[in-house]
């Protein structure tokens, strides 16, 4: 099992966790690269494979897209409109091709390509880990797993909050732990790079711009992490281990009714979430009407037709029920099933919601309401 930082069973207290991470820092696993060489590093990735990186789109928005030159990359960015999940679970993915002449020929399709994802934040890496957990479960999602094999993940650590919507420290996704091939951390004059896999070693060797890290660099990295422990705080006034209980008490919380009025069911919050994986299946034939494709397309529990079944019955008709489902899907159901919280704290859902539905505020109001209930019981 992967050593994920937010496994809920027997979670160590925060200080011990930091200690564990620090004590594992082995100097020989680290490299350094001069800051002025970082653009050259990106340039040297192009001969290796297609490169995808965060690019600025204006009005405070960023997207992951293919880059052909280092000029387009932004090294500092807030989480992109869609998470890099779109490369592991494409928005519209061909899964089958069919053709009918004399006989019907059906061909399953797996779409994958070699890809370097550059500049992935730790919250999005946590998102990959969530998806990986689900897709590796039986029945395994072969397409996903094959794609993952062909992707190199190069992370960039955040030394400060991206913005006020983030809650990555609450779920422990603000620190690099596992799930990447290389992790870049900015120190005063250099980037220190954690080489975490053979794919990562390969990139280091092929680009040829790295030097070994020294103990002094490791010391600096440690100091940075200590500084980070002061900058990042627990954004939600409870601990992760109390979350399942909180949700067990919150099925009838009043906040769901409030969301009923506010939510537009636009599905933006789920489209942008790095841990959502619901899909619809569609087929398209070409104009000869003799051949065509079957697709898997992103879909969302927030949309009207999602829970409609034969006979037109909709078992999650109210917007409040759909919103509640979204939160239970992030914070409760997967704790039982996979031992993980399925929120990375990336803040995308709150950032994108034009109705102003804010994940942190919802959690805080659940906590308040639940505390009031507990007190009432005691009195």
């Amino acid at each position, binding site marked *: 099992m992967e050593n994920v930082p937010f496994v809920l069973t027997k979670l160590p207290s925060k200080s011990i966790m930091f200690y564990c991470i620090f004590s594992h820092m082995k100097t020989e696993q680290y490299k350094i690269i001069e800051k002025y060489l970082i653009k050259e590093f990106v340039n040297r990735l192009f001969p290796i494979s297609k490169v995808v990186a965060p690019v600025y789109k204006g009005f405070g928005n960023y997207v992951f897209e293919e880059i052909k030159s280092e000029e387009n990359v932004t090294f500092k960015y807030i989480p992109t409109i869609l998470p890099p999940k779109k490369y592991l679970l494409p928005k519209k993915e061909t899964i089958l091709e069919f053709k009918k002449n004399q006989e019907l020929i059906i061909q399953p399709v797996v779409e994958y390509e070699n890809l370097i994802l550059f500049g992935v934040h730790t919250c999005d890496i946590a998102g990959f880990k969530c998806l990986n957990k689900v897709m590796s479960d039986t029945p395994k999602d072969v397409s996903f797993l094959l794609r993952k094999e062909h992707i190199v993940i190069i992370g960039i650590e955040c030394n400060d909050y991206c913005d006020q919507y983030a809650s990555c420290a609450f779920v422990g996704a603000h620190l690099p732990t596992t799930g990447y091939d290389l992790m870049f951390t900015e120190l005063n004059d250099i980037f220190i790079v954690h080489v975490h896999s053979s794919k990562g070693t390969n990139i280091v060797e092929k680009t040829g711009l790295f030097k070994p890290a020294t103990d002094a660099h490791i010391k600096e990295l440690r100091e940075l992490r200590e500084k980070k422990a002061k900058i990042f705080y627990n954004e939600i006034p409870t601990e992760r281990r109390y979350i399942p209980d909180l949700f067990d008490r919150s099925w009838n919380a009043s906040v769901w009714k409030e969301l009923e009025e506010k939510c537009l069911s636009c599905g933006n919050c789920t489209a942008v979430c790095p841990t959502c994986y619901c899909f619809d299946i569609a087929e*398209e034939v070409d104009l000869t009407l003799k051949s065509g494709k079957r697709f898997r397309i992103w879909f969302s529990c927030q949309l009207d037709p999602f829970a409609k079944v034969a006979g037109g019955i909709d078992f999650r008709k109210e917007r409040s029920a759909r919103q509640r489902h979204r939160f239970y899907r992030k914070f409760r159901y997967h704790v039982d099933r996979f031992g993980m919280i399925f929120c990375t704290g990336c803040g995308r859902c709150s950032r994108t919601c034009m109705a*102003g539905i804010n994940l942190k505020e919802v959690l805080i109001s659940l906590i308040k309401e639940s505390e009031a209930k507990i007190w009432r019981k005691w009195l």
Partner: protein
Amino acid sequence: MKSKPKVAFFDFACCEGCQLQVANMGELLLEVLEIVDIVEFREIMSEKWDGQFDIAFVEGSITDEHATERVKKIRERSKILVALGSCATIGGVNGMKNSFPLEEVRRYVYGEFHKFFPTVETKAVHQVVKVDYFIHGCPIYQPEFLTVLKCILQGIPYYVPEYPVCVECKLNENVCMYDRGLSCMGPVTKAGCNSWCINNGNICYGCRGLTVNPNTEGFKEVLRKHNIPEDFLIKKIEMYNKCKELDK
């Protein structure tokens, strides 16, 4: 070989822009002609057809008695009838007429000759005759037209997406118009156009009509936050959706 299905296009009160979208399909139109036989289409040919149609595309809304009779005749002659474009599917902009007394409208348009031009309130095609397929949009989105055509030829239904334009817009990863300081009807408008306008830098006008079960009250709240008066939304909704009142 089995003969190709006979297809015809007709227009009522509209700008004929949706037919133009079909006529303008370029090479794809040649592929379409491989599988159907267009027997009547005023915008591209002068021939007419006096037999039965396998598929009739009807563009425009029904706005007088003459049109009512004409569309009924077309229905009788067609196996499948498709409402083409928002004027036909939801009444479209012609529906704005229904906000005023008919007498006033006639006087405004025809002045002293108004009594020679009897009129009725604007109706969408399905409010007069049975419609088998709906292709929304002002104008229609070419890929959706082709999808619907293929569904008809396969004998399967076409389901208009029952969610708002935002869904497609997000998948296209556009910068939201509200982030640009503009207003956008996407959150309450039926999807199916692949957020065509926003992809091209324009706001959504809501041309495909309100989505099923829109949260208009919640949307008013959003607009209020952006200092947009409530009246603005009502007007925007009425621009395309006025005929909806006749559905009840």
